[in-house]
């Protein structure tokens, strides 16, 4: 069932969802890799626990923002098989919409408050 048609506007996305999309934009990732990458990117501020991580993945699969690619071992980590996810074209569009929303927000904030060069 194409849920996309029912709820076209998913923005604003939750931070977890947006970060997952950001990571997957670079290529396929498995769950643990996603978690580690997001933690690094946010300087440890956003550490996704397994429940929230897979809860978000579950939701994103349903919304068809991402899809499963296949299950294969991670050559860098260990030999265990892991499930990989990749972003869908729709997921890319939603991420773009979210980025645009954020940009507009930032521009508005800059106009109102002024934005320091180095926050």
């Amino acid at each position, binding site marked *: 069932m194409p849920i996309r048609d029912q709820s076209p506007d998913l923005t604003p996305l939750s931070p977890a969802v947006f970060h997952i999309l950001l990571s997957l934009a670079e290529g396929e990732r498995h*769950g*643990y890799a996603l*978690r580690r990458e997001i933690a690094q990117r946010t300087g440890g501020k956003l*550490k996704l*626990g*397994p*429940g*929230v*991580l*897979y*809860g978000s*993945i*579950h*939701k994103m699969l349903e919304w068809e923002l991402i899809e499963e690619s296949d299950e294969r071992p991670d050559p860098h*980590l260990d030999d*265990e098989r*892991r*499930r990989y996810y990749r972003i869908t074209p729709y997921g890319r569009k939603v991420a773009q919409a979210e980025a645009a929303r954020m940009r507009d927000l930032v521009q508005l904030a800059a106009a109102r408050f002024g934005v320091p060069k180095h926050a």
Partner: protein
Amino acid sequence: MPDDPLSLRLYRKLLKLYPAGFRDQYAAAMERAFRDELAEGAGIALWLRLLVDLAVSVPAQFAREVAQDARHTLRLWAARPWHTGFAILALAIGIGANTGVFSVVNALLLRSLPFRDPERLASFQLFFPPHDTARHFHDWRTHSEYLSDAAMWETGDVNLGGSGEWRRARVAQTSWNFFQLLGTQPVLGRTFAPNEEAEGSGWGTPGPNAVAVIGYGLWQSLYGGDARALGSTIRLDGNPLTVIGVAPPGFDYPDQTVIWKPAAYSENNYGWITIGRLKPGITWVRARFEVVADGYRVWPASRRAPRSNPSSLAPLRDELAGPIKNASLVLMGCVLLVLLIACTNVANLLTARTADRTAELSIRSALGASRARLCQQLLTECVLLSLAAAVAGLFVAIATVSITTKLQPAPLAAQTYSILDGRVLSFAIGVSVLSGLLFGILPSLYAGRVHTFGTRSSTDTRRSRAVRELLVAAQVMLTIVLLTASISVGRAFVHLMNVDRGFDRSGVITAMVSLIGTPRETDASRLMYCQEALDRIRRLPGVRSASTTQTLPIDAKGGMGGPLGLDGRPGTSNSAVIPVMPDYFRAMGGQILAGREFTEADMQSNASVAIVSDVFAREYGQPAELIGRLVGSGNYLRRIVGVVKFMDYMTECCGYKQVFLLSLTPGWPRTAFVVRVTGPTEDHIARIRATLQSVDPQVPVFDVKTMDERMADQFARPQFYKTAVLFFAAFAVLLATIGIYGIVSYTVARRTHEMGVRMALGTTAERLRGALLGQGLIPIAAGAVPGIALAILSGRVLESLVEGAKSVDAAAYAGSVLFIAAIAAVGIWIATRPVARLDIVEILRTE
């Protein structure tokens, strides 16, 4: 890698908290994620993070899956609205009736009385403390070894008000410490003081006790809640009392009293009821022993022969619940049975539906849904069904409560039946959840057996059928119990209504008149009033005869009585004494066995005559042998002019030994006019009331009713129970029939093809239907055997709980089974109608 098996095992357990669908997909991945995190470093911080993670994500996932399942369920329901509606209705009646009846049981037997420390309050039976003087009573109570306090009360109805405007009111005279004993504080003013008690008898005699505490409701209606009520005067039967206090709202103990006044002690008053408070540390067992001894110790002081039954006491709450208690318990049993039957029925329905959904469940299973996931879906369906039934049941419960409140009011205003009570609501929730589990377990178990990829084996079909037949058998079993119970209660009721009460109630109108406190109070003017009233009534069209009596049959509350004997010899036991006027037996439809009725001539000659009942006469010989002999005690003797069949006055004191006296001073404390009319009684009621009022507008005329109405009032409670039990039995039969119908029509639908083939091979449709009928009746036979056994057991219980209920005989057992079988057979025959319409050619072509 610091692989910690313990934390991993713990995490695995925690993963079980997630809903089945989510777990199926991600449990393995999450476990790995956990191991990865462990590899980064274990510790309290990790576990804290994990717990927060669980706390956030478990409810979120549950909400998603339950919403999904709920949407699915609603789609299924919409597809089969009749099935669903029936299931909800059956459960709603079951849950609602249980909740409603439980609210009664709760109010009467579980909730505390609205008094201080109510668990220690006791009510005495067959016990009179010394009560000839106030001093003796208070000596007794203050020296008691097992009571910390005790009080006495007696109630009566009086005319409240004065000239012109009056109303009937319930008054209690109490020992001065009555309110203290109960721990009840007045909202205004004070309660009684020790020096406000009096000696002597009567309700309103002037004396130190001419003060009153009035009820809150009366305060509102008489004084509009004005504090100036204190010190004002109210008149009881014409005698003034000063209002000194107002009772708190809802306080109406005893017997819906609205006015309390201090006691007037007298030696001969045996209308007192004693209540007490057990001393701290005294157990109920000990108190029961003490009261027996106390009874024997005190009794000689009251100069009466010792009784065969020793004195006893019981918790006040049980005493108040009294007659309602057993009836409520029986009803509770019935509604529990009904709920069980409803649950079995819905379980049956759901099992069948699950069986029909094999294809859907198999496909979902093939698509990766685990057994747990499918069970979760089915359980969600059941929980939703329970919820819907519980909401619908709420309305049934409210209706039940309002019906019971009307037909079986609680003894105290504070004991209202309410479902808005913590205990009742918990009960309702508990019953809903339990029944949900009960009917949900079977379908869920069934789903556990659904195989992936493909259809179920024939073993499964057979097993499913066996389960359903077992359920029908269980239903039949429970239905037989209910049916026989309803027969037994119904017979007891019919017996109650048809028993010969010694009078003919049809066409009789009765009206009460109270002359106390009116200008017509003296002996002579009371007689004049009654005679004038009778003259006027007898002249009315359609009136055949009219008379008066001090007490009406089936209505006597404490009448007069004493040990009357024959020809100056003392009587062996008490007889009821009932003063009446001429023509009483004609008006009441009594049966004169020997001699004659009282006549106007007796009246004119001031004849000292009496009529005795056959039960009284039996001790002395044939009825005719008593005519002309003297009845009475001591020097107070009257000549017997007639012997009548006893009338049922429902008094506890004297059985059916009755002595009717010709009353030359009628109307004290009140009198009942008895009028026999021709034609519909309704036409006469208003006319008789108006005629009585026209004699003297200042005399209160009240309670104008036909004798039929009085009977109906008197037996409203048994009538209610009979109707309720019959209704539930009928409902049970209906449910059982629907269950059997369902199972058979399901079989027919499943075996269409096979039956088509068999018909092609020469079997007739009738023979096939006959075979199906035989098969359909098997579970009934299977349920009948344990059903009868259970019914015999429950009959014993019923006998002990319901007065007059007798275990039913073998014919009734057989009758109930046959009745169910016959109704089921009709259902089965209707369910097999499609067999007759089978198109063999069509069936074979699809082959």
